[in-house]
């Protein structure tokens, strides 16, 4: 309180600060870093004036919160064990959308089935990690940090971000809370609420810009608070015009019994905005969207079908919107959930927390088909499905093929891959 304000803009950190200084004062990783000089204006300008070049691959991550029941998503409808494990929670074969290998999609997933028919959908079966954790929070943390054994405070895409030039537009999550997925040690993704951001205008805007300058006196969290406000100016500067139209109303809020394990509830609206922004040339390589409500402990069938229908229709609509932009060839959508569910239904016509589940990779760059082994319904491990594919196999392939970064930088020395992408 007693200090006299220093008026030098440079000392205030208002005009420029080095990345090294930033790291030092944010308490983040102290590894040697490039001494590139950044300023607020550089970032804002880059966001507006350097649209993502056509042909740059874009990753859209769809997180399904609550633990999606994989067995009622990609359904082993020719396996009698499926019917005996779920006598009142199964689907009649004739209602399903048949794929290959005795598997069929949930009847509500017509959009994804059409994409499957044109070889744009890879289904990776039995995905999980060693020693499955049945807690929503631990398991989602494991998936998002990409680290089953040791607790990390960075997300797997956050570590990818750490290997990119600092740019608040590089990775954007829809919704106002940033998922750990995009938390990096040196930079994190930005959050974008539905409806977009508006820059505070006029005198208050100018005042807030002053208030958001970096200060060498900032603690780690104060620096993060200042940065979040500063990023508001750079992010909103480029996205507000795109979102000048009122955001579409959420038309897909399913009534769900049992949805209490995180995630947003308006996936269609989120993907609409992502589509607009990609079409406008936002310099963003990673988008994160989410849908909650998959924690179907009771009366699962209708609730899950409604949710899967939303996932399916919003993704197929999103990809068809992309055709007009000339960027549909650039996009890969990845869908996952923190765990699958118990094989045996629980008697309230729901299922309890389980282990592995299918992942979806969707897009022009994907080589459609089935990957990984389908976990057996008769050789269960303590009543649960085996894990046949480690999620790091999928992440590694996505990092290399979509984000074009050596997987080692994100996941360390991990050798497994899922060859679900066309060769370039």
């Amino acid at each position: 309180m007693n200090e006299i304000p220093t008026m030098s803009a440079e000392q205030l950190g208002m005009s420029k600060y080095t990345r090294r200084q930033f790291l030092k004062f944010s308490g983040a990783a102290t590894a040697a870093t490039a001494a590139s000089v950044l300023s607020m204006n550089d970032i804002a300008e880059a966001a507006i004036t350097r649209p993502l070049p056509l042909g740059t691959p874009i990753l859209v991550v769809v997180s399904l919160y609550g633990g999606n029941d994989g067995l009622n998503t990609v359904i082993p409808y020719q396996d009698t064990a499926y019917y005996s494990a779920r006598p009142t929670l199964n689907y009649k074969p004739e209602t399903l959308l048949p794929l290959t290998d005795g598997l069929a999609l949930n009847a509500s997933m017509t959009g994804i089935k059409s994409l499957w028919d044109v070889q744009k959908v890879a289904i990776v079966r039995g995905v999980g990690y060693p020693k499955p954790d049945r807690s929503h929070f631990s398991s989602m943390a494991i998936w998002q940090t990409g680290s089953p054994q040791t607790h990390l405070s960075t997300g797997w895409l956050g570590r990818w971000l750490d290997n990119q030039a600092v740019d608040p537009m590089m990775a954007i999550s829809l919704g106002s809370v940033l998922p750990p997925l995009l938390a990096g040690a040196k930079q994190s993704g930005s959050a974008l609420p539905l409806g977009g951001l508006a820059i505070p205008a006029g005198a208050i805007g100018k005042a807030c810009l002053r208030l958001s300058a970096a200060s060498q006196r900032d603690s780690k969290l104060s620096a993060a608070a200042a940065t979040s406000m500063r990023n508001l100016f750079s992010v909103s500067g480029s996205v507000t015009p795109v979102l000048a139209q009122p955001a579409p109303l959420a038309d897909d809020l399913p009534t769900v019994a049992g949805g209490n394990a995180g995630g947003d509830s308006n996936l269609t609206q989120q993907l609409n905005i992502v589509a607009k922004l990609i079409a406008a040339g936002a310099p963003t390589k990673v988008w994160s969207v989410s849908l909650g409500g998959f924690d179907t402990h009771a009366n699962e069938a209708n609730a899950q079908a409604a949710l899967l229908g939303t996932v399916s229709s919003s993704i197929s609509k999103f990809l068809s919107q992309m055709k007009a932009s000339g960027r549909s060839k650039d996009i890969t959508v990845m869908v996952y959930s923190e765990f699958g569910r118990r094989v045996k239904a629980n008697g309230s016509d729901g299922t309890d927390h389980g282990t592995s589940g299918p992942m979806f990779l969707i897009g022009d760059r994907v080589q459609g088909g089935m990957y990984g082994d389908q976990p057996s319904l008769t050789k269960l491990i303590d009543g649960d499905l085996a894990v046949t594919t480690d999620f790091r196999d999928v992440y590694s392939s996505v990092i290399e093929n979509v984000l074009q970064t050596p997987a080692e930088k994100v996941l360390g020395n991990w050798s497994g891959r899922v060859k679900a992408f066309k060769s370039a």
Partner: protein
Amino acid sequence: MDLKRLELARLYNRFGFGPRPGEFTQALKAGVAATKQSFLNPPLIDSGAVALPAVTDLGKRPEPNTPEIIIFARQLRSQNENIELWWLDQMVATNKPLQEKMVWFWHGHWATSIGKVNYAMPMLKQNETFRKYATGNFNEFAKAMFMDGAMQIWLDGGENTLKAPNENFSREMMELFVLGVNRYTETDVKELARAFTGYQVSRSSGVVVYNEKRRDMKSVTILGKSAVMSPDDAIAHLVSQPNCARFIAERIWYRFVSSQQPLPANHQMISAFAGREIAPVLSTLINGTDLVNPQYEIVKSPVEWFIGVCRALSLTPSKLDSFNKLHGYLEKLSQVPFSPPNVGGWPTDEAWLSSASAQFRIAFATWLVNQADLSTIEAQVPASRAAYLADLLAVVEWSPRTAFALREVRDVVPRLVILAICSPEYVVSA
């Protein structure tokens, strides 16, 4: 850093919802020890208490497309609004700040959302249970939470039967409420679910009843102990585990001290919880040395930030124009009382610091400041307004950056106040 200011600011911002005008200056004079005593030994009766809203049992939802459904929907919405405003008002008006802060803490601990519960009545009853046990005996508290209607609805307790056990409640009881993750086995989860069978709940009133037909009467084995256990027996067994003391100390540490740094091993809070009484844990923490350790910073959650502003600027949530706007701002900042995002409660720290929340905070602050009487700030000479605001808001110190930003707008008081409450120094509890 002025450690006296730091410790007092943390008392007000973390163990309460921020000071009222004059309180922080008064505390600086009275000293740290006396201020701690005032937090730990508040008056028996909360003279600021706001009367409970009238909430009635609305019964079953009528069929769609009937005249009854319109009346029902209107009443339901009004009751849900009323309990939200009542609690916000109560947080602002309370003269027992630590008690109220603990009610808020337990709401995030036993996180239950009206999004699934639907009815106001069970949610309000749950809030009264939080009040009853806020600083009381944890074993009694946990038993009461098993019989809590809103919780039973939230975690499918009524679906957990002899024929078809449902593990939702038993898993969270161990993972999130009493022991902490991985301090039990998957078998323990299944066994506890059996001990929890046989209870049904009325969704509209939250009344929980026992139904012997649904009860699994056989012996269960939980954490090495085999017996026929009632829910009370099973909970007492969980609460008696050493891990319970560790876990509750960890959660209090996480919300009041730091979510970035782990609870030090053998922290005194753990032994202070030996009798499973909550009050000694709090006094141990408050009387210890953690509050003067500058590394333990924490970001105020949106509700904490909002209530702090209301207390400092003498605003009453229910008198703001209007409920819908207020609710909208809280929703955009992702924190509405009675609506935690999931059973794990609200996130912490960086999760509240997105560019989106920065935008909404500025808009929210502008809306609030425009409704406040700023005459006492205007009465200060411009050169001393920043210092006055630091005391009003219990800010330890303004950084040179913020001091400069405030100085540039000090002649325009509303703008000055908006900046002060949106500053990193106010958003973060140093």
